[in-house]
């Protein structure tokens, strides 16, 4: 990882010095122990702030979209001859690169507007698992030492293997290397245990419907509608989100639990074939809603029904904007025939 970080800084420095990019979106050391935070590097001197370690959590594709979207909007108010292109460099792991692919497919910006600094990824540290390790206490100091996480709290020192603290989505990730990259730094680590990817979904599917509904109700009851999941999601980039739209008003903001359920249902449904399972939404959720249980189902369906994995190739269209004559029809209602429940 040390080498990757060094190489990353060099590459970023080079790109900025040669004016090939206007800004590099990456991670820097966070203000709290064992954290990293997204940062924007605009001068070669600043490039030394960049870090790459298992504390880098959020999907940076979101920031790329935001920066470029704002730039496109601002350019509309500039005389045509004075318009300029803005190029964003981005530190991208597997899931970030898949989100970038989705943006490119959905024509949010051109390939010439981004420079992808691919980094190998071995998964990131799950904040909630870390909090559990610290026993809910404040982490005073922390260190990553040869695959071991050591945390110091008021009551003492605890340690655990990093592999046990990785986020759930990282444990079954099959994209440790970026699917597209302009510059690839570092060696690509072996693929994690991807065969068990859909196990939790299958287990949930096998529960009786009432139990599933109770779980859905319980999880959604936690949601406080802060929209952090939407704000952090790279696939949620609509200028006006349906949640705040007033004509038509899709979802009410009342205290009724069904309003929240409907909001979550609608947001999650947007992710058919678009969720890259980066885990950002679950990482930022202040209430610990198990969003992944539901998002992963759409991922599974997109794969089993349409053979599509989100953001894997630039050529393959999004599953809901394409069709095949032979798409499944078993859900179609036929009068007189008992439909599967």
């Amino acid at each position: 990882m040390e080498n990757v970080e060094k190489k990353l800084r060099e590459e970023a420095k080079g790109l900025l010095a040669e004016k090939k990019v206007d800004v590099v979106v990456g991670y820097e050391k966070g203000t709290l122990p064992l954290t990293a935070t997204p940062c924007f590097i605009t001068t070669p001197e600043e490039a030394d702030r960049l870090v790459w370690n298992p504390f880098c959590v959020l999907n940076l594709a979101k920031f790329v979209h935001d920066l470029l979207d704002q730039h496109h909007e601002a350019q509309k108010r500039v005389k045509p001859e004075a318009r300029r292109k803005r190029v964003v460099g981005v530190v991208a792991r597997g899931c970030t690169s898949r989100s970038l692919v989705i943006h490119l497919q959905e024509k949010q910006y051109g390939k010439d507007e981004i420079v992808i600094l691919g980094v190998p990824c071995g998964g990131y540290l799950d904040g909630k698992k870390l909090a559990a390790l610290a026993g809910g206490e404040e982490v005073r100091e922390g260190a990553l030492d040869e695959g071991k996480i050591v945390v110091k709290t008021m009551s003492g020192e605890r340690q655990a293997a990093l592999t046990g603290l990785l986020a759930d989505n990282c444990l079954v990730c099959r994209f440790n290397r970026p699917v597209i990259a302009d510059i690839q730094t570092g060696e690509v680590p072996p693929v994690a245990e991807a065969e068990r990817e859909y196990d939790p979904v299958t287990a949930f599917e096998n529960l009786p419907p009432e139990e599933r509904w109770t779980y859905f109700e319980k999880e959604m009851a936690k949601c406080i509608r802060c929209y952090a999941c939407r704000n952090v999601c790279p696939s949620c980039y609509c200028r006006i989100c349906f949640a705040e739209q007033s004509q038509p008003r899709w979802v009410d903001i009342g205290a009724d639990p069904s309003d929240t359920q409907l909001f979550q249902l609608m947001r999650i449904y947007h992710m058919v074939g678009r969720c890259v399972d980066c885990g950002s939404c679950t990482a930022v959720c202040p209430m610990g809603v198990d969003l992944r249980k539901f998002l992963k189902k759409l991922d599974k369906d997109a794969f089993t029904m349409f053979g599509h994995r989100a953001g894997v190739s630039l050529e393959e269209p999004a599953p809901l904007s394409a069709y095949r004559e032979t798409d499944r029809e078993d859900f179609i209602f036929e009068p007189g025939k008992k439909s599967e429940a």
Partner: protein
Amino acid sequence: MTDKESAKEWEPKIVAIVCNWCTYAGADLAGISRIQYPPNVRIIRVPCTGRINPFYIMRALHEGADGVLVSGCHPGECHYITGNLTARRKFAALKSFLGYIGLEGDRTLFTWVSASEGDRFAQVIRGVTDAVRALGPARKLVKRM
């Protein structure tokens, strides 16, 4: 809620979102041919099933519909060539997902009825009404306040 539950004469309320070119014409044919079918459906006509935002279905359930039926042209017969083929994918994913969170499968139904199938339209409505009646009043996802 109490009205709906206690009333012995509870009748299912079904929203049928149908396409202008096939199913709506099919419904028309059923009417012209004086074929009887249950009056529990409220038909909403849209240009094409491809025009149906899946939010319509979720929103209908939220507003208290006991069942939602979506019907359009048979695959390959869409007035807009491929509208129903893309719709088919959307609905496959939606139905699967609603089932996953624990909604009864028969609350959301999808079918194809062409303009010449007045008889089939009546059969579909009978079938859907029976299926939804068997489930009883909708409780999940329904707005109470």
